[in-house]
């Protein structure tokens, strides 16, 4: 691997990310998959780093999940998106930041479609006006929340309490980065680093002290693939794709997987349990799995937030081996206590995968 070659590609794909004043739109599924990730993004960006980040309770799903599952036509998704733009106009913002990768892909695809077919944009303006008497401006910039964290990665590194380093050996942690397909595969120039060698996550990892692993199936989909998963009979394809990735990364002994999509960390996490039940195989050390975290969770750990406040107990693969490596103290007794210190109940344990 020639690192300078990657740097050259990265310099070709540097997208402009605004410094401040963002209109933030949340994801429909991330809040149940990773309940504390979005909250901590807001905490880090707004409270810790003092940036202007606005969100409104009136915003809805972007329609991307239904569009990608073939249940609504794109024009419907466009009208939903047009409404979000009208909320942004109302609030006086011009920089859109999405929490979800599929939203990011959806917004980008719609704006590109309107650029190619302006008559479609006119029609959507009519639809929105007829439906709810609203008007909108198109955003000046569309960024994904991971773009923002990438932009702020060095500010985060300055305030870091922990680094992505094995605190006993001093060795950098070996980290797999996994980019959601809808981040840059549709429009390579809209992603930091492009589509083949994206650096939005690897940039964070390097800035926080870790070492990025480039394994053969790095570019392969996590396996979610919407229709592969949503129809139960097809789930074998979904888990087989994930299995392929784990088989490919196994020789590199990764300590951690970092992701920027709602689906990827969920499937890279939960399918480790299913694979272990079906094949008896686990991919972490000593019967554990490989923790798969969101970039907000990882930023939170680096900044010293409590792992249970970050919601790491919600993951199937236990985060404890990672916390031990990074030297992060945690209280096992608090793992299954909610924010109000009430018991949220312990899950049953898998037969193969070790989860403490």
């Amino acid at each position, binding site marked *: *691997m*020639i690192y300078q*070659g990657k740097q*050259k590609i990265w310099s070709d794909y540097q997208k402009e990310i605004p410094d401040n004043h963002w209109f933030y739109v949340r994801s429909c599924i991330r809040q149940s998959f990773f309940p504390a990730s979005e909250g901590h993004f807001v905490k880090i960006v707004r409270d810790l780093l003092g940036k202007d980040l606005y969100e409104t309770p009136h915003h809805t799903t972007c329609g991307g999940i239904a569009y990608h599952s073939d249940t609504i036509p794109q024009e419907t998704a466009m009208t939903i998106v047009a409404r979000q733009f009208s909320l942004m106009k109302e609030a006086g913002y011009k920089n859109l930041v999405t929490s979800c990768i599929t939203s990011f892909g959806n917004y980008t695809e719609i704006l590109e479609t309107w650029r190619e077919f302006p008559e479609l944009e006119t029609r959507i303006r009519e639809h929105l006006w007829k439906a709810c008497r609203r008007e909108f401006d198109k955003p000046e910039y569309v960024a994904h929340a991971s773009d923002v964290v990438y932009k702020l990665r060095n500010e985060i590194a300055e305030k870091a309490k922990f680094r992505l380093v094995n605190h006993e050996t001093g060795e950098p942690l070996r980290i797999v980065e996994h980019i959601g397909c809808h981040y840059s595969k549709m429009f390579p120039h809209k992603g930091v680093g492009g589509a083949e*060698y994206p650096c939005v996550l690897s940039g964070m990892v390097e800035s926080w002290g870790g070492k990025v692993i*480039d*394994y*053969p199936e790095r*570019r392969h989909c996590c396996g979610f693939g919407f229709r592969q998963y949503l129809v139960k009979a097809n789930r074998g394809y979904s888990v087989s794709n994930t299995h392929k990735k784990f088989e490919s990364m196994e020789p590199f002994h990764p300590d951690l997987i970092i992701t920027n999509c709602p689906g990827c960390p969920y499937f890279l996490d939960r399918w480790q349990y299913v694979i272990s039940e079906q094949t008896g195989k686990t991919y972490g050390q000593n019967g554990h799995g490989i923790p798969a975290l969101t970039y907000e969770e990882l930023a939170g750990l680096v900044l010293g937030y409590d792992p249970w406040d970050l919601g790491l107990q919600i993951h199937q693969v236990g985060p404890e081996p990672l916390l031990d490596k990074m030297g992060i103290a945690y209280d096992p007794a608090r793992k299954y206590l909610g924010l109000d210190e009430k018991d949220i109940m312990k899950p049953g344990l898998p037969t193969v995968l070790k989860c403490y």
Partner: protein
Amino acid sequence: MKESVVIIGGGIAGLEAASQLLALGLSPVIVEKSDHLGGHVAEWYRLFPDLSPAQDLVTHLVSSTSGARIYLETEISRINALKDGYSATLNNGDVLFCKAVLVCTGFHLFDAAKKEEYGYGIYNSVITNRDLEHWFGGLEDARIPDNPRAVGFVHCVGSRDVKAGNTQCSKVCCMTAIKQAIEMKEKFPEAEVYCFYMDLRLFGKKYEDFYISAQRDYGIHFIRGRVSEVSEDIDGRLLVKAEDTLSGKPLKVRLDLLVLMAGMVCSPQTGRIASMVRAEVDDDGFLRSRDNIYSIVESGRKGIFFAGACTGTKTIPETVAEARAAALSAFRYIKEKA
């Protein structure tokens, strides 16, 4: 005083045209931007189909143009139309007066790094056809392993590729791949050698014989499928993915060296020269001939002639034949005007 013809480009087209113009009693002047004559051929080691040394051809052409004025490392800054010819201003300040201009600006080898999925410049053992020729010619190349177990060739890199902006077939890469595959098999008889192709276009004299020999005598494997993705495994070997379109299944194989057959694209100078002599550029980016059957070497503008790959992808024999035709056309144009 002999009438002069300015030849833009000192590759094999420019050299052969100059040699013919000298024989016809004219005075050719070659303006070459690089520091050497012979263009791409001077960088090649052996040529198909006879495996003759490329240097022999270049040496022959250079010696037959010893009577011509030659500028190296010089570019044309401006060309003005005069009453009975043209004046060409060079970037060193010289001004050349001539009766005709012969454009021999040739082609540019496609930048293989643009096909990001192949990882040229990123993975250690991915090289181009030109890199391999340099290595055959004796240049060291750390990317080429001492004892490769498996070597792959990817045809059509940057050719027949709408996304890369080049729809044209580069014509010579299929044969070059087979030639280089055979040369690699001769150097490493134990290695498995794979050619990944979309179509094999082997139209010239002896080309098909070469193909049969590559199959039968050298056991080179031909896989009909375009490589979609290259990556590196933990041992640093390349993992190459393609579809085996004949069996309709995805296919993968581990290789120690991958050679990208970078295609011919129009030279970046061609557009600049075209605007100077007010010649037309075709929709494929190459220069537009007066017609593509009978007058390939003519531009449609008086006294402006073309030869070689500036009008499209060409083999060496085609280029040499066009250079002769262009020299003769220029000669007749000058004589008829006189």
